[in-house]
């Protein structure tokens, strides 16, 4: 577990957030805080509303009730663009990479909002636009080193195996140098070794850059290993919150996973 003393103030506060799709109440008055520099895991059975929670945080979904406060700014809803601008980056449960583009280009898109010059400038391929492009390239090369994916820099990501695609997707999120990193099942479908690598990268990101991380994960041993705190959702409601050890012995959580009471 990462050292306790690193954890700072509240970075993100989710307050009474609800959202329904037709008759399905995907989130029902969910509240929790995320503190700066911590790793918070969201767990829960399938369909519990975990992905919906991340989608609300980065503005893909707009909660029908409640608010989300990020860096002290309280919002009922946020546009995705705004969320990205504020320093929220994410990966997706079903990998959402630009399949036709190389690893390098994919990760470069993560720099999009860091480009100082305006969009029209970037349409040029000379002068200051080119110089800036090269500066960003340097950051991206660091990310590539960090994730140990030099060998696939030029490969179109559509051709990569699943585990590597997940890694590239993490790279794209990291390239944005986010304050808050949202990871939706970053280790799903990976073999043991790939999972170990991913765990190491997540811990290193958190350690080296102090990035706050909210991740959804099904593998309990992973969750217990890396998270500072855990929030448990079931049928859209928060049923428990606490350290991994507290959550593990919580009767509601055990029931939810065993399907008791539904």
């Amino acid at each position, binding site marked *: 577990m990462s050292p306790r003393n690193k954890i700072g103030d509240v970075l993100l506060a989710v307050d009474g957030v609800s959202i329904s799709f037709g008759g399905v109440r995907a989130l029902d008055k969910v509240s929790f805080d995320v503190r700066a520099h911590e790793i918070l895991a969201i767990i829960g059975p399938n369909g519990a509303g975990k992905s919906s929670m991340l989608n609300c945080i*980065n503005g*893909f979904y707009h909660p029908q009730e409640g608010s989300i406060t990020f860096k002290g700014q309280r919002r009922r809803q946020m546009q*995705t*663009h705004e969320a*990205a*601008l504020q320093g929220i*980056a*994410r990966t*997706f449960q079903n990998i*959402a*990479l*630009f*399949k*036709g*583009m190389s690893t390098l*280009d994919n990760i*470069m*898109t*993560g720099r*999009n*909002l860091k*480009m100082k010059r305006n*969009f*029209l400038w*970037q*349409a*040029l*391929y000379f002068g200051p*636009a080119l110089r800036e*492009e090269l500066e960003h390239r340097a950051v991206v090369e660091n990310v590539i080193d960090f994730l140990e994916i030099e060998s696939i820099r030029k490969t179109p990501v559509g051709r990569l195996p699943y585990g590597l695609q997940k890694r590239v997707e993490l790279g*794209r999120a990291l390239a*944005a140098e986010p304050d808050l990193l949202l990871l939706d099942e970053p280790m799903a479908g990976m073999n043991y070794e790939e999972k170990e690598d991913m765990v190491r990268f997540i811990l290193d990101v958190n350690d080296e850059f102090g990035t706050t991380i909210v991740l959804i994960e099904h593998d309990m041993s992973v969750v217990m290993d890396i998270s500072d705190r855990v929030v448990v959702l079931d049928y859209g409601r928060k049923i428990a919150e606490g350290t991994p050890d507290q959550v593990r012995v919580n009767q509601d959580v055990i029931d939810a996973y065993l399907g008791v009471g539904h």
Partner: protein
Amino acid sequence: MDLWNVLFVAPFADMIGSPRFLLEVIIGGLLTGVMYSLVALGFVLIFKASGVFNFAQGAMVLFAALTLVGLLEHGVQVLFALAATGIIMVLLAIAIERLILSPLVNQEGIILFMATIGLDFVLRGAGQIAWGSNVKPLDVGIPDKPFEVAGILLNSFDLFAAAIAAVLVTVLAVFFQKTGVGRALRAVADDHQAALSVGIPLRTIWAIVWSVAGIVGLVAGIMWGAKSGVQFSLSLIALKALPVLILGGFTSVPGAIIGGLIIGVGEKIAEIYWAPPFGGAIENWFAYMLALVFLLFRPQGLFGERIIERV
């Protein structure tokens, strides 16, 4: 036996008998093909970035050409008129984004397609109201003189058109592959959600793509207009772009270009060497037949990736 001879022997004998003439036919076909490529390119750009099959591409070509001719008729300088038309096409793109794409975002592709059919009518109507419906000659000052190189008859206008198209395609290729905006465009074309998550402004991207398609349409309109006058049938070249797209694939820029050239050359050769047995005028339908045959063997197009449905 006679039919065999007419279809499979005589045409090839003619070709071999006069290779110089064949070469002229091929060059003529390539130059027409360049025009098809330009129109198809407009389709591909928009389809790639917004997943919309823009039925109004032909009307955009017409609208651009009409606007240019209209301005020239009012005595506006050529360069100034070109710039003004370019700006109008950009404004049109922004308006389309605001009024059509944005309100319909996340709707089914077919709904956006219907919207572009509406746009097609609006553009034709607007062009007609603003500039009238007569056939208008378009003269942007490109010389149109035939000359001979090594015994082959060429036309300076055609060469100029080809050169312009080549420059345009090169600029677009660099823009797409090497610049930040190009990368953002490709990202949007690939995955909307992911593009949004890294903060790529979708609406700006759409406006840019439609602007580029408008400018490409303007170039196509100038070329065609200068050749055969600006008239309403100009918007029909969009229909010629369809077989080109089937050949080249709907999402491939190189495909649009090669596809255009193949159709251009194919229909010229067919017209010259195979028209007699069919009673002439096969140039009009040859492209569609070629596309049909092609569909049977490579439905994904020349450069498209073969899609295997995941089950």
